[in-house]
């Protein structure tokens, strides 16, 4: 299925990926050829087939609601790009 360049820009926005304008064409080509490969799926008759999310059809294991972890904020924040007083710093989010 052929993608329009606007669709490529839209997908990049959804995925929060900066793509240079001069690369949009190449992405359009590559993504289109991948989607062409994938289109073969539509030839399969899947009526009544249960989708399979997990190879062994496992269900989420539950555990007791008890505290097992300790606060390691300082340790984990040693590798953060920017922190202040235990918070991660980012550009202003709320206008």
């Amino acid at each position: 299925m052929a993608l329009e360049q606007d669709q490529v820009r839209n997908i990049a926005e959804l995925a929060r990926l900066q793509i240079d304008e001069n690369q949009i064409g190449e992405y359009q080509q590559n993504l289109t050829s991948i989607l062409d490969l994938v289109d073969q799926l539509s030839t399969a008759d899947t009526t009544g087939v249960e989708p399979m999310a997990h190879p062994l059809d496992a269900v989420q294991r539950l555990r007791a609601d008890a505290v097992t972890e300790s606060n390691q904020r300082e340790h984990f924040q040693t590798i953060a790009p920017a922190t202040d007083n235990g918070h991660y710093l980012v550009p202003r989010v709320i206008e």
Partner: protein
Amino acid sequence: MHNKTIAQIARDLAAGEYSSVEITQTLLDRIAQLDTTYNSFITVTAEQALAQAKAADALRAAGNAGVWTGVPMAHKDIFCTNGVLTSCGSKMLSNFVAPYDATVVSNFNQAGAVSLGKLNMDEFAMGSSNESSYYGGVKNPWDIDRVPGGSSGGSAAAVAARLVPGATATDTGGSIRQPAAFCGITGLKPTYGRVSRWGMIAFASSLDQGGTMTRTAEDSAMMLNVMASFDPKDSTCVDQDIPDYTATLNNSIEGLTIGLPKEYFRDDLSAEMQQQVRDAIAEFEKMGAKVKEISLPNTHLAIPAYYVVAPAECSANLSRMDGVRFGHRCEDPQDINDLYKRSRGEGFGEEVKRRIMVGAYALSAGFYDAYYKQAQQVRRLIKNDFVEAFKEVDVIMSPTTPSPAFKAGEKTSDPVAMYLEDIFTIALNLAGLPGMSIPCGQVAAEGGQPLPVGLQLIGNYFDEARLLNLGHQFQQATDWHEQAPADLT
């Protein structure tokens, strides 16, 4: 010393032939001397390795050594190693010093193993040639103009070049088996859920599985004994009895039925390679096994299904790389959107971005049913094919790859051509079955140099012990696994 297997090293250390420090230093020297050619390591942890080796020797002197005490190995750079760079082959994590050990890593640490460092890989485990790594491509030790395969190219090359006797690796669509085939070594992907994924950077959560790269099935069994564990921290880990995988290596295979899927033995494959694979299967017949043709009719849908499921899951998993809490952050972000877009745009390579976008598209409103849901349904059809086949046969065999190692750069301009390299390996990831590749022959490249050929064995759920048994028996009767690239023994 570098030619010794894990099993031999374990015996030698127990017998006091040499110390762990000695063999560790020997391999570190060898890596320093040879790895500029292969680029199989991203990080060599020389100091820590020698410290681990020293501790292992002390433990042995105190009479407390186990099988793995002091045995050297290395980890694919997808496993978090506390205090050590864990890059996943990506610029995005090129500054990520992991703050904890993956369960696989701590299993080896507890067993007393010595880790020599972190091995190169395709970025975020996406690739079949190890050409997409931020740290440069890996060279195939059999022919440095060719790729080692991927994504676990570093693990495969390091073992093939005898820089380490064994390495951890991961397999989502063939990333252990295909490089093992290209590099002439033994690679095992266990059943989904056998090995904990905690601390193993996620690509496609319903497909990823950690496994082994070694030169022998016996060594693989020894590694799996350490890697397999029930981990409450991995909710997809299965609580299933773990046998001693070394205990059944010598079981007789008399009366075993081997299934050969007709869809995997195609006319357009190299006749020479097919012959090598058929000769290898004949070896099993000599040992008393029977061969039967089977059909896996939905085989042609495996690659399309995979290239919806894997990108969809990767788009979700890689959304955590946002420049906020760890990893690459762009300079001077103007607002939160700019922070995300430029950090991710700069941090991820082309293939990763392509797959994230395919995934985002397949999951987006209006396309979910046609793509993702359809792929999940096809996945069940593929699994059902195998379930039916295993009612008639005990194990399935096929070539691992459609051709031997290709030249660097040959497939990088066409993503789909690269994807088709996984044509034989991918279906069993979708089904969650265990698979192994063992060296079974060689074909000559145009320059005359030998290129390895791999035989793939596919087992039923949790039947790794049987695969290892078959691999070991084959390796007792033949010596393909002992072949090495010229000048590397």
